[in-house]
């Protein structure tokens, strides 16, 4: 089969010729094997978990309950969440799961070996791609299986009891919601205030006059150069002892986040403004505009588009950095979501609270990260000029 004859006959759905060529049973089989191994290792494992979770297959063994019992300070015993945890563990160590692991391992390695052997001799680009994709998927699923089997050989009970004991969270739902609200509030106010502070600082820091530039530069370098975890208590004590201003701890934290974010936002704005071709400023000034008019009508509207993705990145970082208010003593009302987790941990010695909190952070940050990538892509591919 020559290259030309293959490419001649194939058309893509949109009518353009498909230059990648046709396929054959061998490369298609390798790709399918790779996909199958991946699905067995991931979706298969998930299904086993779900079956055990719903069916409670086999119920709770006494040994399982024993493993899950936590002795509290007063001599009380806590087996909360035992059922869920027990099912997680039973699923992980079940023979069904073992069988799936071995199947995935064998199929995955088979796809990897076959793909690597044959990809060079494939006559069309599509066949080669299929061999390579199949081999890569096979290697990935094999590695995943090896990783899971290694994990399974350890003390799964202890791990699940400490990190996946979700039933423990039932009683503290209010605290969880309040913590999430406080975290988001800190991040939003910090970001919005920071953008305001950053705009002013950026205008100052790009000034031609050293005397205008210097204070702004010192401010920015101070906040970028010292750890946030030091700034929080420092400003807390500075305000209360130094200036005699008694503010809510939460308010002080918000102020510090605004000041800190301002320094980073200023650098983002500065870079955005400086990235605009200097011909734009020259053209605007040549038309008789003042410096501020040129900024207002020519430079800033172009810079704004470019600073959106980095500002959103800063926001994602800020969401996670709000956890640092842990260094200030907060009341239960003021706790952020990380503080909630610490409180939960302190009362139960169980890290599942941290697991739940990590999931909560991800629920907010993952869509934001995707959005940043999307916006960046749009700005890059979009027409240079249009807003």
């Amino acid at each position, binding site marked *: 089969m020559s290259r030309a004859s293959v490419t001649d006959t194939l058309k893509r759905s949109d009518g353009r010729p498909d230059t990648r060529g046709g396929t054959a049973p061998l490369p298609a089989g390798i790709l399918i094997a790779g996909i199958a191994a991946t699905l067995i290792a991931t979706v298969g494992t998930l299904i086993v978990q779900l079956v055990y979770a719903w069916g409670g297959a086999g119920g709770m063994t006494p040994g399982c309950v024993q493993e899950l019992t936590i002795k509290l300070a007063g001599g009380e015993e806590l087996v909360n969440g035992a059922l869920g945890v027990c099912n997680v563990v039973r699923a992980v160590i079940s023979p069904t799961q073992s069988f799936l692991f071995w199947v995935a391992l064998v199929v995955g390695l088979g796809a990897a070996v076959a793909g690597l052997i044959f990809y060079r001799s494939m006559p069309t680009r599509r066949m080669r791609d299929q061999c390579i994709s199949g081999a890569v998927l096979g290697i990935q699923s094999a590695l995943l299986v090896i990783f899971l089997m290694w994990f399974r050989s350890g003390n799964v009970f202890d791990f699940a009891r400490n990190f996946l004991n979700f039933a423990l969270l039932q009683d503290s739902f209010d605290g969880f919601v309040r913590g999430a609200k406080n975290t988001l509030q800190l991040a939003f106010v910090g970001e919005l205030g920071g953008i305001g502070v950053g705009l002013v600082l950026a205008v100052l820091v790009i000034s031609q006059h050293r005397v205008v530039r210097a204070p702004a530069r010192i401010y920015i370098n101070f906040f970028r150069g010292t750890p946030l975890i030091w700034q929080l208590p420092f400003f807390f004590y500075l305000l209360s002892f130094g200036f005699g201003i008694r503010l809510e701890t939460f308010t002080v934290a918000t102020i510090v986040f605004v000041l800190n974010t301002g320094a980073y936002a200023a650098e983002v704005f500065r870079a955005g403004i400086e990235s605009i071709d200097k011909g734009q400023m020259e*053209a605007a000034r*040549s*038309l008789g505009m003042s410096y501020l008019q040129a900024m207002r*009508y*020519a430079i800033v509207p172009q810079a704004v588009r470019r600073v959106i993705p980095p500002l959103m990145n800063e926001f994602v970082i800020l969401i996670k950095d709000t956890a640092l208010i842990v260094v200030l003593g907060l009341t239960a009302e003021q706790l952020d979501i990380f503080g909630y987790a610490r409180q939960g941990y302190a009362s139960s010695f169980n890290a599942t609270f941290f697991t739940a909190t990590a999931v909560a952070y991800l629920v907010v940050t993952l869509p934001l990260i995707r959005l940043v990538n999307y916006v960046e892509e749009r700005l890059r591919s979009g*027409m240079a000029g249009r*807003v």
Partner: protein
Amino acid sequence: MPNPDGSLVKLEKIHKWFGQNHVLNGIDLTVQPKNVVVIIGPSGSGKSTLLRTINLLEEPTEGRVLFDGKDITDIRTDVNEVRTHIGIVFQSFNLFPHMTARRNITISLRKVLGKSEEEADEIAMEELEHMGLPEKADAYPSQLSGGQQQRIAIARALAMRPKLMLFDEVTSALDPELVKEVLDAMIRLAEEGMTMVVVTHEMGFAREVGTRLIFTDGGRIVEDGKPREIFDAPQDERTKSFLSHVL
């Protein structure tokens, strides 16, 4: 109100240093109204810098620039006001990419000259027609060819009704087939009696349209005279060598 000697622009003993780099070395130049002064010279000889001192995009390190009866190098002069009377067109167009062609033209009419939206629109359309691009009023620069962008840039400068137009290698960034439309627009302007200072590598334009030709080298004016005379019989060795390379 022209300068005391009747000229529109008068450069007196202009020196410009960029750090250690002595880019303009004692330039004296007088531009009479309705003249088309063409500046040629090797790359790096200071042509752009010379042109840009006329509207103070570059401030001379030494010397005076008189424009229309005023010493514009005096720090008490309102540079923004002076610049409304001097149009400049750049090699790289420098249109505002986030504005339509029309708004590129009206923005300074409205924000600098304080004209109403209707008045500014009217002037913009007039200048777009002048440049043969009335149908591109609502196009963004990225939707236009280089030649069209450059003509919009000329229209933008002309809309301010300047007394002087500066051109800095305005055809150098264009594909060869687009050069003519821009040169034609400049020729029309010259015929209408606009005072122009033109840095260019288009020797045909220099010879046919220029009323005066200046050759710069090493930050000095080494030859100054009628274009035809210089092209036919250059006096300075450097001019001879330069012309033998470009003609």
